[in-house]
């Protein structure tokens, strides 16, 4: 059985993802297929692959510090000239927009290993919204094209 269960409506795709990095390839493949079906420009599909990897992996790694099995939801919607990515989890409250920018180091010095994911996301989307609703984090990302 596939770890992801697609429930397709006309132009949106809803996926349930487990808090396991092993689910990321199925998410990636689903967006590849759906983006191509909906004739989203290839560059936009790729940019959002990076975005999905960053946002989903952050949730998988940090949303449930107590561990255990959890799911979160990813909804991809293609409208006129824009793709909206909505990610909803019931982990600890976390607004990714508050992630600090990466630390700058002098040329020749070793940069820090991490802290770049959300920085990339900011540059790859046109809108980055977040709200905490009840026990849920809701991240909504919009990328325009065309």
């Amino acid at each position: 059985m596939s770890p992801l269960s697609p429930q397709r409506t006309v132009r949106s795709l809803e996926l349930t993802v487990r808090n396991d990095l092993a689910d990321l390839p199925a998410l990636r493949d689903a967006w590849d297929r759906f983006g191509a079906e909906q004739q989203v420009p290839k560059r936009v599909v790729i940019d959002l692959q990076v975005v999905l990897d960053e946002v989903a992996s952050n949730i998988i790694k940090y949303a449930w510090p107590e561990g255990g099995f959890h799911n979160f939801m990813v909804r991809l919607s293609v409208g006129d000239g824009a793709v909206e990515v909505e990610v909803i989890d019931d982990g600890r409250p976390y607004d990714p927009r508050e992630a600090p920018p990466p630390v700058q180091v002098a040329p020749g010095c070793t940069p820090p290993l991490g802290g770049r994911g959300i920085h990339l996301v900011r540059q790859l989307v046109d809108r980055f919204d977040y709200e905490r609703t009840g026990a849920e984090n809701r991240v909504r990302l919009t990328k325009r094209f065309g």
Partner: protein
Amino acid sequence: MTTSGLKIAQGRSGEVCVVTLTGRIDNSNAKDVISELDTLIGSGEKNILLDLAGVLYLTSAAFRALLVATDQAERNAARLALCSVTGHVRDLFEMGGLLDSFTILGSRDEALAQLS
């Protein structure tokens, strides 16, 4: 069916060990890149060239892997360079603020000429 998304191939040109990455480097497979480079550096390779010509995109997990490997190479007196970093992949390095953090050479031929 899901795929690993990344192919790692190894070759040799004189003293240089060339690792060709093809596909996507993300949170699901960046550990494979670390493990490949870790093994090569551990086995005493002193000149490693990573060819990214076939990389469709990479994410911050890939940057982390490359930074870890670069650090390990330095500690083992080895040289790790990247080549064929172009187009969208180059843009992502720039967005990550990392164009100056690696030895990035031109095409594979240019890189081999410089490293040999």
